[in-house]
């Protein structure tokens, strides 16, 4: 089920607000469609992202997809375990995205403008209705 403590995009990202910080990831449905992510590209901390525009790329064996930002703001944190660390040669582990997309599989923390809300995004019910109307 899609948690009700956050909002959703039509392109299967989620956004959870805590003050002026919004945590972003992709939905369980997105993961199911991708199946077994093999590669994720995330923007660096400090990068500006725009609502509705791609901030990264996720690949599986079969497909390459954009990951879109649900909000406009600045990247203030990212889930480092999901990407390679060239310095320590630690390899990315996308297991958390696969196993727990709404929790440990979060991707970015984005600082939004003071007073910004998630009202432009879908509620869990609206998102579920969209999936149903798409035949899923």
């Amino acid at each position, binding site marked *: 089920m899609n948690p009700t403590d956050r909002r959703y995009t039509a392109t299967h990202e989620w956004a959870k607000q805590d003050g002026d910080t919004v945590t972003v990831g992709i939905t369980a449905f997105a993961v199911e469609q991708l*199946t*077994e992510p093999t590669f994720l590209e995330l923007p660096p901390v400090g990068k500006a992202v725009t609502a509705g525009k791609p901030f990264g790329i996720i690949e599986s*064996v*079969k497909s390459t997809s954009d990951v879109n930002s649900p909000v406009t703001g600045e990247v203030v944190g990212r889930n480092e375990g999901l990407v390679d660390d060239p310095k320590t040669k630690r390899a990315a582990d996308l297991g958390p995205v696969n196993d727990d997309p709404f929790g440990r599989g979060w991707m970015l923390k984005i600082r939004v403008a003071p007073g910004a809300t998630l009202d432009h995004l879908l509620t869990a019910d609206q998102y579920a209705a969209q999936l149903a109307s798409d035949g899923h």
Partner: protein
Amino acid sequence: MSNLRTPLYQWHVDHKARMVPFGGWDMPVQYAGIAAEHKTVRTAAGLFDITHMARVSFGGPDALKLLETVFTNSVATMKDGQVRYGLVCGETGGILDDILVYRWPYGFAAVVNASNREKILAWLEKHRTGLDVQIRDQTFETTMVAVQGPKALALCAGMFETDPAALKYYFATPTRYKDTGCVVSRTGYTGEDGLEIMVPNALGVALWDDLTARGAVPCGLGARDTLRLEAAMPLYGHELTESINPLQAGLGWAVKLDKGPFIGREALRDAAANPTARPVRVGLEVEGKRAAREGCTVLSAENAPVGTVTSGSFAPWLEKSIAMGYVAPAFAAPGTPLVVDVRGATIPAVVVPLPFYKRPKAAT
């Protein structure tokens, strides 16, 4: 127009397969997941519904003559029960399809790509003029499945009247399954040992259930594609098209210029005698984990375009990003450093010998 469905369609849907259109059919692309299915075939045994492949039988005194005319490989030198890979080419040497020809004591058969079924049937019809040959499309009468992997032969023990383990690689036999005639062939498209089995449609689901009960794991076309990519087997519509000839594709071994006349022979003889700057098929190992997918431009180390990717994926068994494509001959030698343009990102790659994956030789 709605897609064709195999007798196993309902089974796939009931078992949560993700169905996709392929070659005019609704086919399962995956069940549990492509990577898991892929690894099962490399380590145990996977089961594929390949009923979409077209099956055509040939009878009559001129069947051999017709096949020799349309097929680049030699048919006359085949033994009974032998299976041979080759191409169907046009007059200019372009590839119309890649097919398997089967020789029986009583005639011949061919397995043709689903997407090319109608084109090849029309081609055969065109070239049978004046020949005494019966051509029968049996695609809709039979169900075809592939059992592939190191455990495939063992799990089929006792299923058929004839023991398939006695078959040599690329040989087939008519035999019986549940007292009904069928064909078992030691062939495949995964780089593993295994069988391809054809039964009348009425037995399709029973055969599938039997094989899964014996431990074969259902796999979709997604894994079939990544498996054949690791094994560097070309796929029609990707590595093979009407504007590519077999020599460019590295399939010269399946073209017998001296076997006698066949369609495309003169053009291919010319191409063999006069190597040109036509691009040739190569394997690429791509740095990192990003997939270099079909259509990506291949660049020289100096960033000049030298070719195009025709298939590419993160390889589940080899655990690296691999691709096949066509590059100018000057850049085709193994070890040549190249660059692939993946959606604007330029990623280093190197030409490697094909295949990427070769199965370990079984202990004898």
